[in-house]
Structure formats: structure tokens, C-alpha cells
């Protein structure tokens, strides 16, 4: 079996195949010792594993998840762009401005990164996902005033929702390098959420003592049947609402009393962030109500 001949034949029908392997040398470098290479390279098992690796996450589902992530990043990017252009931001402290600038920089990077990844998989990246101007116009203060009507109050809801949104689709990228990238963005969003909360005088994590704790984003599960605005995205079917943020049972384990020690409901809930499914993120009670022209 001539390994390179197979690759060459494959590249005739799939011009990108060589790009999917890091490089020919890397492929063989991963095989270990020279002795193993000649033996392994000729086996169908090896070829199968190699192609599975090259194509893992590049199936339709990978693109869908990336498009979903890109839509949310575009949404956040536009929100922070609007914040930076506003007068409340202009009057904010230098430290708060610097934090917003750093967050915006990351959202820009995420947009660029995800666009590139989607294009690289042969799809056209989504565009035109913006924060509704009419809603933004109502955010007249940076952080003082009623929480959910200030710019940072909305930022907190957006960042916490973003963290939950990435969790909700991670499983579809199981075992792929795309998952690693998604996780690396996910934890950055969590850092943003913590900082925004800190700027607002809230705890870094979601907890019942928040001034926004009673907001539907944290308290309401959305059940199937809602009609999310889906900008050309595939919305996976689901039958049960995701846990809300005061959940104290994880993986069937009662965190308050099932661990051999007693923990308060507040600590049990705060120790885990929850996930959200696509329809829930895009529901009108969450991002769906803020997306638009």
C-alpha cells in the first residue's frame, strides 16, 4: 500500500485534504519511532485513524457550532462597540474603560478566529448580528441605576449567557481540536463575566445575592415550543429546559447533602455554572430579545 499515493488521489477530489493534516512530516512524526512507521503506515487501521483525525469536527455539526459561536461573538462585539461610542462610556473611569477595551479586543479576536475557521471548513461565516439599537438607546448610564437598564448590567447578562451558551454545545465538538478552541474562548468569557460583575460590585460568580439574580436569564428555564430568532442557524431539538442557576444537583448528586459534608444551597449553586441550549439562548427572554437592527 502506497500511503502517499492514496493521499494524492484523495487530494484530487478534496483539494483541502493536505491542509487538514498538519503536514506530511507531522503525520509521520506522530507515529513515533522509525521502526513503527513502516509497519503502521501500511495498515488500514492507521489510515482510518488518520482520516478520522483530519476530518473530525469538520462535519456539518462543527460548522454549525462555529456559526452559532460566531453569531454570539458578533452580537457581543457590536454591543461593546456601541458602548465605546456612547457618552456614558466617555464619562467612565479610566480603569473601567480599560477593562471594556480589553474585553472588546477579545471579542474582536474571537470574531476573526471563528470567521477564519468557518471559511477554512468551506462555509460562509454569518454576518449582520447586531445589538438592537432601540434597546441600547435605553441604556443611558454606565453602571449606576437600575441594574438591567445600565450598560454594565446588560454586559453582565450577556457575558453570563455567553458562558452558558458555549457549554450548551461543547458536547457536539467532543474529542476534536475545535472543542479546545471553544473551551479556550469559553473561559475567557467567564473571565469577562467575573470582571464585569466586579465592576458592578457583584460577586464574580452567579449567586442568589446578586442584584440581577431574579432576572429571567438566571431563574427561568425555557421549554420547547419557543420560537427563537435563528439567523440561518440550525437549532438542535430539545425536550427539557436546562437547569436554572440555583440548581444544587449535579450529575444526579445532591451537592448540599450528598457529598459527605453539608454545603449551603448558595455555595452549591455557585460552585457550578449551568449550560443553555440554543433555543434558550435565542429566546426573547435572553439574547433573542436583544438581537436586531
Amino acid at each position, binding site marked *: 500500500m502506497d500511503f502517499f499515493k492514496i493521499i494524492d488521489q484523495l487530494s484530487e477530489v478534496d483539494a483541502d485534504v493536505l491542509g487538514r493534516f498538519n503536514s506530511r512530516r507531522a503525520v509521520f512524526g506522530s507515529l513515533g519511532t522509525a521502526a513503527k512507521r513502516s509497519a503502521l503506515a501500511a495498515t488500514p487501521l492507521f489510515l482510518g485513524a488518520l482520516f478520522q483525525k483530519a476530518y473530525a469536527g469538520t462535519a456539518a455539526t462543527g460548522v454549525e457550532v462555529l456559526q452559532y459561536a460566531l453569531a454570539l461573538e458578533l452580537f457581543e462585539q457590536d454591543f461593546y462597540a456601541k458602548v465605546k461610542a456612547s457618552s456614558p462610556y466617555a464619562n467612565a473611569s479610566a*480603569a473601567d474603560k*480599560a*477593562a471594556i477595551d*480589553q*474585553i472588546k*479586543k*477579545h*471579542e*474582536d*479576536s*474571537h470574531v476573526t*478566529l471563528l470567521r477564519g475557521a468557518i471559511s477554512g471548513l468551506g462555509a460562509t461565516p454569518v454576518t449582520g448580528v447586531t445589538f438592537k439599537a432601540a434597546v441600547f438607546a435605553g441604556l443611558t448610564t454606565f453602571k449606576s441605576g437600575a441594574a438591567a437598564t445600565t450598560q454594565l448590567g446588560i454586559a453582565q447578562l450577556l457575558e453570563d449567557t455567553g*458562558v452558558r451558551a*458555549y*457549554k450548551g454545545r*461543547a*458536547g457536539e465538538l*467532543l*474529542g*476534536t*481540536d475545535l*472543542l*479546545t*478552541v471553544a*473551551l*479556550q*474562548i*469559553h*473561559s*475567557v*468569557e*467567564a*473571565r*469577562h*463575566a*467575573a*470582571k464585569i460583575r*466586579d465592576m458592578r460590585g457583584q*460577586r*464574580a*460568580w452567579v449567586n442568589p445575592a446578586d442584584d440581577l439574580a431574579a432576572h429571567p436569564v438566571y431563574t427561568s428555564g425555557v421549554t420547547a415550543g419557543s420560537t427563537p430568532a435563528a439567523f440561518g442557524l440550525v437549532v438542535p431539538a430539545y425536550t427539557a429546559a436546562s437547569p436554572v442557576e440555583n440548581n444544587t444537583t*449535579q*450529575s444526579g*448528586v445532591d*451537592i448540599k447533602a*450528598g*457529598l*459527605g*459534608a453539608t*454545603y*449551603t444551597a448558595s*455555595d*452549591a449553586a*455557585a*460552585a*457550578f*455554572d*449551568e*449550560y443553555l441550549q440554543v433555543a434558550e439562548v435565542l429566546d426573547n427572554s435572553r439574547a433573542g430579545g436583544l438581537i436586531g437592527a
Partner: protein
Amino acid sequence: MSDNLQPRGSDDTSFAQPLYTPIKRRSFFMYAGATAGASALVLAGCSKDSNNATPSLPAGNSVTSSGAISLGSGDVGVLNFAYALEQLEADFYSKVAALPQGILTGSEYAYFQEVAKHEAIHRDFFKAALTRDASGQVLRGLTPKYPAATFTDRTNILATAKAFEDLGVAAYNGAGKLIKTPAYLVIAGQIVSVEARHAAYIRELVTPGSFAADDIVNATSGLDDQKSPTDVIVIAQNFITEKLDASTVGK
């Protein structure tokens, strides 16, 4: 990691000694004979030898030829890996939470009390999940060790906390793709974002504005750090008495 986080006065030989069994091993090879016979028997022999040599370990905590405790393979390995890190974090914060007030400011002290609870929950949760799903392969309780001045002043406490939290985030980010069971991935994701929130907050205490600074979040890609389990253990090992082997995690 800064110099003050390196362990001082650790005595490698004293804690590793019980795990090495030179006499037993030598006598085993004497019985096994020469060349072909010996090499054929090495694998089986090592495994058995190690179990005999470490009766204090619960079943499943097999020891590699170097005397390290293997975290195991597959999803169990990933869960044990996370359990090891959470044991370390929980121990650190429990010691911080027990310090007399005054070393940290009032709000910091209150904050650490809560984080200590989160990390204790994470540790206890992994133990419960492993006991349920992989009975007999649960990593044993580890013995953390710290540089002498770790708990004596605010600067050292915050520096250690920052190092642990950033390392924890990178560890979960790097180990995620090794997980094969979706439910475990969800749980890991539910925990890592809480660790990232801790990390961001601690960073603000150390240096205001550094919650996601360019030294931890890549300035170009906007991606947080990620590290392989073996790379993470090399760093965490400085704070754990037992020698750990993460080479089979996720495999």
C-alpha cells in the same frame, strides 16, 4: 511561575522511598532469568511488583516503574486528573480560610471563605462521581506541600491562588478534548468557568485590570491558556508530595 512558588526544603528521597522497591524488583529479575524470558515478563512483573509494594494504595492506584501513582486512563484518568487538582486547590483554600483575620483585607477574607467552599465542593463532587462510576479506581487522598512562606503574607497567598486558578483553567481547557463521555464534558465545563471567574477575580486583587491580561489570554487569538495533563502535573507536582503520572490520562 515565580520563584516564591517553588517548594523549599522538599525532600524527594524521603517521600518517594516507600514507592521504590529495589530489592523486590531485583530479586524478581533474578528469578525471571535472562534476555528473552525477562523482557517478556517485565510488564506483568512490574505491575504485580508495584501492587505488592504499595499496600496503602486503594485498588486502581497502580504505580508506574518510576514509582509514581498513575492517574489512570480514559475518562477515569481525566476525572482523577481533575480530582487531583481540586484536592490541591481545596486544601490550599481551606488553609487560607483558617488563617486569622488581618493577613487579608476584610473583603478578601470573606471572598476566600466562599471560594474555599466552591473548591471543597469540586473535590468532594469528583470523589463522589468517581466512586459511583469507577469504584476502585478513585485516586487516593493526596498530601499537598507548600513553600515555607506560602501562608504568611497577603502577597504570597494571592500569588499562589493566582497560579493555581490559572493553572486549573488551562488544565480543564487542555483536558476537555480527551473526555469521551458528553456528561463528563458538561460537568468539566460547568466547573472550569467557575475557576475562570475565580482566576479573574484573584488577578484583579494582585494587579487591577489583569483579569484577562495578555499574559494569560493570547493578545492576537483571544484564547485562554490550555495545557496538556502531563504539562499541568509537572507544575502541580511542586505542591503535591506523592509523585503523579498523567501520561495515560484520556488514552
